[in-house]
């Protein structure tokens, strides 16, 4: 619980932040909300020589709708995700996920970029962002680049961020008509607990309002990184949205998941919960899709 001393730097520009980060390499750490970083500093998992606080860098926060896309700054607080009207209306799974992250005290500090960069397999905001096809933007020594979020994670606690690269924003297409989505998570304690399983789903129905046109099922805490249940998604597409097909897709999702046993749960239980919560999430998303036309 003792943080080792470090040098502290508050860049005023993105480029300045990135070049400082590049210069110090693995001896530097980026501070945004700090709720994960301070945990790791206190546990002495990280002992950086330099901490670069990017909170003063302009343009990294905010929630805006631009040209049919939602732009989400990396410094946007989890509390803002939870309470933003645009998000509640268009990306309900994301605000639902935000409401499960830590306590209200943590949600005021923690940022969406931090939650994603921490790359915990159970990260609360990852499944909904992936279910909404989020594109993630990074800025580094070689300028800006972007990737689909699903390609961003490379393992537990690991991302594709290169040296000196800083996550800057997310872009999410505004969901089409007849789209509905939902987020569910299962934990022993309803809140203040890490997910045993978390699931975000998004469904888009055809003009007949019955046939599933598009489907996303993203699972957390049951693989090294948040994952699409791709086979289950495929099973749904082109089918009528019925409880039977949801149950079948849920079974497939459970088979696809790669859970482990750890201090929080067992492999078998996690797999059973993938099935249950995938089904429950699909059941929750369907009426929302039916409403949005």
């Amino acid at each position, binding site marked *: 619980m003792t943080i*080792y001393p470090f040098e502290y730097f508050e860049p005023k520009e993105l480029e300045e932040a990135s070049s400082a980060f590049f210069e110090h390499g693995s001896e530097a750490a980026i501070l945004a909300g700090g709720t994960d970083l301070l945990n790791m500093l206190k546990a002495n998992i990280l002992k950086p020589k330099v901490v670069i606080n990017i909170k003063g860098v302009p343009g990294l926060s905010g929630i805006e709708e631009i040209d049919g896309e939602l732009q989400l700054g990396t410094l946007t607080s989890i509390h803002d995700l939870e309470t933003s009207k645009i998000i509640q209306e268009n990306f309900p799974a994301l605000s639902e996920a935000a409401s499960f992250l830590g306590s209200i005290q943590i949600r005021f500090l923690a940022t969406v970029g931090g939650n994603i960069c921490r790359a915990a397999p159970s990260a609360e905001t990852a499944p909904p962002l992936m279910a909404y096809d989020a594109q993630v933007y990074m800025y580094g020594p070689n300028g800006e680049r972007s990737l689909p979020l699903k390609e961003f994670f490379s393992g537990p606690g690991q991302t594709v961020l290169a040296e000196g690269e800083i996550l800057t924003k997310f872009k999410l297409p505004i969901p089409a008509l007849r789209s509905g989505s939902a987020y569910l998570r299962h934990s022993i304690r*309803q809140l203040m607990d890490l997910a045993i399983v978390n699931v975000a789903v998004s469904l888009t129905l055809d003009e007949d309002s019955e046939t599933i046109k598009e489907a996303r099922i993203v699972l957390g805490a049951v693989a090294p990184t948040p994952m699409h249940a791709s086979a289950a998604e495929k099973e749904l597409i082109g089918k009528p949205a019925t409880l039977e097909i949801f149950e079948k897709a849920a079974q497939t999702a459970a088979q696809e998941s790669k859970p482990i046993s750890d*201090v929080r749960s067992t492999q078998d239980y996690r797999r059973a919960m993938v099935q249950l919560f995938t089904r429950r999430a699909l059941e929750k998303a369907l009426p929302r899709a039916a409403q949005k036309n």
Partner: protein
Amino acid sequence: MTTELKVVGKSLPRVDAYAKVTGQAEFTMDVNLPGMLYGKILRSPHPHARIKNIDTSEAEKLNGVLGVITGKDTKDMRYAFVDTPRYPADQYPLAQDKVRYIGDEVAAVAAVNPETAQAALDLIKVEYEILPAVFDPYEAMKPDAPTIHDAEIQGDSIWEEWGAEKTKKSDANEKVNNVSGRTVITYGDPDKAFAESHHIREDRFETAATAHCALEPHAAVAHYDPAGQMHLWLSGMGIYYKRYVLSKVLEMPTSQVRLHKVYIGGAFGGKMDVYPYEICAALLSKKTGRPVKIELTRGEVFTTTRLRFPTYIDIKTGVSKDGKILSQHIRTVVNNGGYRGTGPVVIYLFHGWTAPVYRVKNMRYEGISVWTNIPVGGPQRGHGAPQIRFAIDSQLDMIAEDIGMDPAEMMLKNVRKIGETLPNGDVLNSCGLIDCVTQAVELSDWKEKRGAPGSDRTERKNGSIVRGVGISTTTMISGAPYYPFASAGIVKLHDDGAATLISGVVEMGQGAETTLSQIVAEELGISLDDVRIVAGDTEQSPIDMGSFLSGGATVTGAAIRLAAADAKRQLLEVASERLDAMVEELDISDGIVCVRDRPDRCMSIGDVVNYSVKKTGDPIIGHGSRKILSGTSRYPSLAKGTGRWTDAYGFNAQVAEVEVDTETGQVKLVRATTFHDCGTPLNPQIVAGQVHGCVSTGQGQALMEEIVYDDGRVLNPTFQDYRLPITLDTPETAGTEVESFEPAGPFGAKEVGEGVVAQTLAAIANAVYDAVGVRITTLPITPQKVLAALENQKKPPKNNK
């Protein structure tokens, strides 16, 4: 008691409330002294290892480090909570030859700030020879298991100093490898009674290690004054007990060790023991000549400040056709961890929480505590009661089903009544068990919710959610013999009519400062606002048994009532002269002394005090004391269970109503109906707070809480992964005290703060069974276990009892 009470029995605001809502209440961690250093402890990373060498030279050289100590500095300091002729102390403040669990204390440093202290720990080089370790008590008892305490511990014990006889400690069973304690209690003729039983069941139950989770982490501030006094601010539960042990360990006269008052941020048993960090703070202060503060991290609190003992319980019970328990054979094995902690006590207590509840005339009880290489066990709210009551009342529920009887009805056939004498000689001068069970059944709508025999559980199904109810009972002592074996109080009067209570009691949330002040106000006939309290400082306060063993209300309360009565007697004697009336003719009410029925012949308490000072110089100071177990001189035997133990028992019964999600296996406690016999509730709001807290802890330990180990390493030493209940888990609570009066207690009061936690566990387990027909016999009742059990159910949901 026909006089109407004016202060006692009222839900008056706590006297410590203002300080606590404004942030002014001072806890140990808030004590900051000029020149204070910060201490940290180097702990063993190995569950079992021999220390070959410790090199502190680099640490000592670090700028800002003022003191480093190791086992060499503590080699004559053998001590422990259990230190009896049979079980001599087995622990040192810093490890001598070996470390016995991950977290065992190896060295300590004091430095100018926490960062430097941490850096110094990193520089201490310890050479370990890693030894094979053992974590399971049954494995540890095998002859070829590693022996954790190599040599038989020799030497005198503190109990001998307190007058216990020097008995020979050898016992054939002690030859069993790693056995740290053994209790065998027999009465009646169990075999014969089993032979006569209509129905016999044998079951095994297991409970997990759980943590106290007081929100205040343990801390110590020590300041050695060169004039020879050691000043201490400690997270403790009894200032006189800690002073005694610290004076022994530090080889100082008891009166030269001074514990100062601090508020305690919750304790629940976890702050009773004297811990190595406290001794290290004192030693480092002595060594450096400066005040030293040591604050444990939350991780250290989880691993090194005692846990509830993981326990294995085998019970064989024989009952008659009409549900009377005829015979019981109980075997318990506790995983003691690397040191005894209170292992030999808890195996005695398991029986202690059994005898007062159900009338079992034929009993064979065997308890064994076993050293292993996990963290050490100790007292925790209920000290053994949660484990044994979980087992006994789970099994009672099973037996009731076997013989086709309602479990509440079966309880009523077996519960003890007022006036009964227990096998150890304790007498139940108050016992409201029947009322507790009856009223809990009634208020919870038990009969309706339980459903008629033969009815289908599925009728209560709502989607995947099924409801069920379960019942359990328990008991708790009201003080037991332990140093200093008594409490005393002083009440001094002021010339404005107010009174100051001086007590050694420790306020750790239980409300003692408030309820004891209420006793003084009631006895003196003044308002609570006119009582000041000075408490928790060994230099100022008379002895106190401490706020453990649940004797605060009964023992300390009785002493303080006597002190107030003594002050009142003196006051009335002076007033009788002044008012020219007999003492017997005087009454005090609202701070005024009057001749009965003569409102014209009155004077205020303040005027009486003034008059007394003017006349004789006596400001009027009353004192009172109460010995635990008045009239007995022998101590109870931990090994045999003989000997009286307490003056009064509290009792409780609870009906838990749960919802089980049959798809996830998750159990939610929705309603807890609790009736308790605490005698006269001194302050009903404080009593209610104690009950709510116990229900919450019981609920947590029934459903979520468990310290998880891997090869002796605690895997979840954080509030994130060790899940105590949060606001969202709070059930609806119902129930209140039953009518009862305990003659030993002040105004009829007895224990309430500890016992209630115990019966929540079986009540929930039985409710889960009632709901979905699965019996979980290992705590906690996790969703995984329930779901697995549901899947194992070959048949569709059970058809009731």
